[in-house]
């Protein structure tokens, strides 16, 4: 139903997702019938060329983490297919994904098993995914630790001994140990303080060059996503509402929701103003509106917006927006 927002790009594709969607069922009890499910992610179609950093941005509940978990096989999509490196994947098996695509979690401490030493944590992917011998593992761990600026003496410590920033670097190191082509970064810096956040962001940028990685960077922080991404996808209520190059998308948004996001972020040097009235209605996930999900909050909404869901259509060279009445410059 949606057109593939293809960037005019000669690079080979790292990841291709076609019509991937997720509906969470609400199974009834023994005597109740199952209720219709919640559509957490509407069918999404995206292609990500090798070496790109794709930003995925949206507010809480927009489905960005659900989408990410499907991309690494932690959740089975309700529909659609996922191709990595030209190969379609068995969507319900994380181990099959592990070698190709890895995940860096939001909460660095909770993503490390508190009862395992860092060495044990690091060795698992090497053993399970690459069947490496003892010697090889040690050499590889040393190499990875070196590249994420962690000291080797950390290997025999336990997760609770580390600060958030260090723990996040360990999480990144573990993901790297699988030697993936693609990394999904799910709010990798939101749990960190700003001074540490910059360290981790810079590290990620360097690793990408070193290991020739493709990133999917998920966040709610517009400034961060803009600083690290080449292309940005804006999600609202489970659907892609806008796709465009990072340098343009917040400067000249085409979708009214992107504009609202951009004008809401507190920015030094811009006067405080509420860009939106308080009594705008948020859509109910159990009872989604028929047309554009943003229509209830949109100052430009008119009749077709409330009945027909707008498809993602190209606007200008590189930008796509799902809006009947896209904004212009």
């Amino acid at each position, binding site marked *: 139903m949606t057109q593939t927002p293809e960037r005019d790009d000669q690079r080979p594709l790292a990841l291709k997702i076609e019509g991937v969607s997720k509906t969470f069922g609400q199974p009834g009890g023994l005597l109740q019938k199952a209720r219709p499910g919640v559509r957490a992610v509407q069918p999404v179609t995206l292609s990500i060329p090798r070496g790109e950093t794709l930003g995925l941005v949206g507010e809480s509940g927009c489905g960005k983490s659900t989408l990410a978990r499907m991309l690494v096989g932690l959740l089975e999509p309700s529909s659609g297919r996922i191709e990595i490196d030209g190969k379609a994947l068995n969507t319900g098996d994380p181990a099959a994904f592990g070698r190709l695509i890895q995940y860096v979690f939001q909460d660095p401490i909770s993503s490390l098993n508190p009862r395992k030493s860092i060495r044990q944590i690091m060795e698992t992917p090497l053993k399970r995914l690459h069947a490496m011998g003892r010697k090889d593992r040690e050499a590889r761990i040393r190499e990875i630790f070196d590249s994420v600026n962690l000291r080797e003496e950390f290997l025999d410590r336990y997760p609770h001994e580390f600060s958030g920033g260090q723990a996040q670097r360990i999480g990144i190191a573990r993901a790297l140990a699988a030697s993936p082509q693609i990394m999904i970064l799910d709010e990798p810096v939101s749990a960190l303080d700003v001074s540490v956040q*910059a360290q981790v962001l810079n590290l990620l940028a360097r690793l990408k060059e070193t290991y020739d990685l493709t990133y999917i960077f998920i966040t709610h922080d517009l400034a961060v996503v803009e600083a*690290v991404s080449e292309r940005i996808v804006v999600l609202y209520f489970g659907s892609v509402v806008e796709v465009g190059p990072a340098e343009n998308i917040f400067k000249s948004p085409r979708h009214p929701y992107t504009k609202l996001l951009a004008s809401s972020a507190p920015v030094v040097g811009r006067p405080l103003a509420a860009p939106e009235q308080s009594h705008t209605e948020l859509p109910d996930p159990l009872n989604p509106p028929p047309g554009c999900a943003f229509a209830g909050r949109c100052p430009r909404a008119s009749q077709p917006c409330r009945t027909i869901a707008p498809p993602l259509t190209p606007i200008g060279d590189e930008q796509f927006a799902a809006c009947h009445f896209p904004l212009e410059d």
Partner: protein
Amino acid sequence: MAFLKLLFRNKLAAAGLIIMGLVVVLAVLTPWLPLLDPDVTATGDRFKPPFSAGHLLGTDHLGRDLLSRLMWGTRLSLMVGFAAALIAALLGSTVGIVAGYFGGRTDNIIMRAVDMLMAFPYILLALAIVAALGPGLVNALIAVAAVNIPFFARNIRGVTVSLARREFIDAAKLAGMGHLRIIVFELLPNVAPVIVIAMSTTVGWMILETAGLSFLGLGSQPPQADLGSMLGEARSALITSPHTSAVPGLMIFVIVMSINLLGDGVRDALDPRLRSGALTRPRAVTQIDRQQPAPEADGASLLALQDLSTEFRVAKRTYKAVRHVNLHVAPGECLGVIGESGSGKSVTALSIMGLVASPPGVITGGAGRFEGQDLIGASYETLRAMRGDKVAYIFQDPLSTLHPLYRVGDQLCEAIRSHHKVTAREARTRALELLAAVRIPNPESRIDNYPHEMSGGMRQRVSIAMALANDPEVIIADEPTTALDVTVQAQILSLLNDLRRERQLAIIFITHDFGVVAQLCDRVAVMYAGQIVEEGPSQAILDRPAHPYAKRLMACVPDLGQGRRELEAIPGLPPAVDRLPDGCAFAERCNKASQACRVGSIELVGTSDGRRAVRCLDPEESLS
């Protein structure tokens, strides 16, 4: 080893361990001790009292030596009790882990069965099992183990479910581990302490239960006797020879009591929450331990902090969260306090009205003056009367800061009626006005909502309405928008800004976001490692920060609209506040630091007009 040390620190648990150890050793050694045969009857020697010749504890109704029977009975009771506990723990935990890890249908079916078993009062099930298998000690053991399996299953399932949702399980899946490996190597090490705790707290109970079945004549059969059946047999002679009852009864009591003491100790030693001392209840007012008399009042600010110091005392460590902080705020003014986590900004805010959790928090010095009156060290009633009336708070996460079981209207009315004698109807009218004032659409229908029925933004509006309830002079807002989405944050910030202009409110706004400071605050204080490192008008500091930390902190925050770029990170981490270095706390991370920065204490030096101040020997901007 650390575990044993923790266990022995708890004197009661140590006592329990010693008594229990003694009983177990004696029970193990019983066959080799010089005791009379427990089963030899001597009708001539019936009911001999304790301390009679040859029978230290006397004899029972068949003339059998009570001491000997007690030892053998204890041995039997312990064996049966431990065996039952082990079986129940093993089977129950397995079931619980499987149900909790796999979830979904597996979980549903298993837990339905467990619920079914738990629908029986436990003894009915035990009685039914014994009825079916016939009386006997082994059957009693089976019955007791069987009725306890559901308790373990449910308990362990609960723990497993919360662990299975943790991200490290997902990480293990992505690292190529299969289900069995994940259960054994990732889950089990985390669940094991809980199993041990559950066992140590239930084994006493299981000894009691098996003794109980024997007491009813359904457990061990004569002549063999455990403690329960000894008590059961002695019952008919209770009035004439009470010692025959007292001996086994007291033994059961001693065993169960020592196990309970030990079990509590084990739980405390293994539960990491208790280890950090987190399970203490915060008092109504923060503890005060001023090393020096309160400083004299200076100036006539509405609210002023003078030399405030707050620390956390945990075991032998002292975390100096706030060190000598001076702040003041005037009517209609918004003061921003900005810093990273651990900088002491929230503790400063909470210290003002004595709301720092205590223990472990202690205010160790300084004064907090509201219209000249010192709040620190003020009586509870004085503080209470001012809390919410003169100085009100708005906290970070409105979901956890509003009471989940009260309607928002009731929470608002309570805020009003804590300070004003008004009728319920008047309070409700006022609450409706407040909801309208914070621009909640349709207050009449919203007032009877529970917090969970509202969105995050609406909840934070309610929190703001509650803070406004008594027309306070000062509002202290502790990261009120951090938990909110950016579009909602913009609404809340502009609401706060309007309210302060309409009502001449003084606001102390705690945040970590320079964008927020720029948009809302007149003045700002930058905190680092418990101290104010720079202070002054927001615009001036944002334009020309003087402290290297302030300058570099701003530089590493990306601003929207500048495209893809390298960020200027600050290397290293803030110092731990229980091991603060001499001199400047930022010196280690500062590229300008010299030797002089690492000695003594560095003062906050102000400009002559008092508008700006910086705590640095080599500031980025000269202030004069």
